């Protein structure tokens, strides 16, 4: 019997060169335009879970009461526990639950912005999902990325997660009041951070001490003044 071989279809290659974060970056640019037009300083707070982001924010909001109008976008995989802590300060807060996702994206932030009175705000804090990897890659439309690390995490976080530290203009060290109880060398920590971001401001804070967050508050005030003068 004659065997008729089926002709195989040739494989075709199609060149795309499509940026993977194209859609996110387009929406982030829209967010940035809107926020700049409203004169709001927007900060994207990135850290590991448990570094003290929410505690620092609560203390910050209380300290700035009557001085600046603030709002918060809270990103967590689940629960509104952090949003309730923020809401207790009387500041407007929008909770985003990212479910399976380990970071906030520009689309989620765009929707959250519709719930805020942007014209009335001076500062908008976006508390990202606790994670030092993916949040670094997703632009949300912020003016600055802020990276936080508690001194219980060790000196070398910046070189283990270099992209987050490289992209953040300021590095906030938290829980400085624990220094006497830890084997943590501040100069080593600063030297590591310097390796991946020589221009970075490094601020030492302690949310539980009187005046413990002054360096951070002053940094905020300077940033806001610069923004208003632009």
């Amino acid at each position, binding site marked *: 019997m004659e065997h008729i071989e089926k002709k195989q*279809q*040739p*494989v*075709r*290659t*199609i*060149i*795309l*060169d*499509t*940026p*993977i*974060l194209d*859609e996110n970056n387009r929406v982030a640019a829209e967010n940035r335009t809107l926020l700049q037009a409203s004169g709001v300083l927007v900060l994207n707070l990135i850290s590991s879970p448990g570094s003290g982001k929410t505690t620092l924010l609560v203390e910050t909001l209380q300290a700035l009461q009557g001085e600046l109008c603030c709002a918060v976008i809270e990103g967590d995989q689940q629960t509104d526990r952090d949003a309730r802590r923020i809401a207790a300060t009387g500041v407007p807060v929008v909770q985003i639950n990212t479910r*399976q*996702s380990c970071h906030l*994206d520009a689309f989620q932030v765009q929707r959250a912005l519709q719930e805020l009175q942007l014209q009335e705000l001076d500062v908008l804090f976006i508390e990202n999902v606790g994670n030092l*990897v*993916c*949040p*670094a*890659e997703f632009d949300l439309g912020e003016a600055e990325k802020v990276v936080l690390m508690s001194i219980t995490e060790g000196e070398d976080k910046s*070189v283990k997660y*270099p*992209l*987050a530290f*490289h992209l953040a203009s300021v590095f906030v060290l938290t829980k400085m009041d624990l220094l006497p109880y830890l084997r943590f060398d501040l100069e080593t920590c600063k030297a590591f951070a310097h*390796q*991946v*971001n*020589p*221009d970075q401001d490094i601020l030492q804070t302690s949310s539980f001490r009187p005046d413990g967050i002054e360096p951070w508050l002053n940094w905020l005030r300077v940033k806001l003044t610069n923004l208003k003068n632009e």
Partner: protein
Amino acid sequence: MSIAEYIVRAACEAARQNRLAKITRITLEIGRFSGVEPGALELAFGYVRKGTLAEQAQLEILSPPLLLFCKRCEMEYAGDPEDLRCPTCLGEEFDILAGRELLVKSIAGI
């Protein structure tokens, strides 16, 4: 996961436009200094491709190394992600030339 979804969506859209019946390979460029971990992406891709034109596609990931430019030496150098400064002069002003890529380079199919 959202990155894997985007990749599959972009690949399937291109496949439909080019009348491919199925995708056999998706080639990505994920720079060494990007926030995407290839292992995690491959895992997510395995879930996301089910029921799509990319169901049997292989994922090929190219990882361009980190390439920096020292503004003081005016020289290019291979970057160490743990220390981005210029190894020659320890210069602290540099530009990233490559290593931040996040691209769907191409697809192949029949």
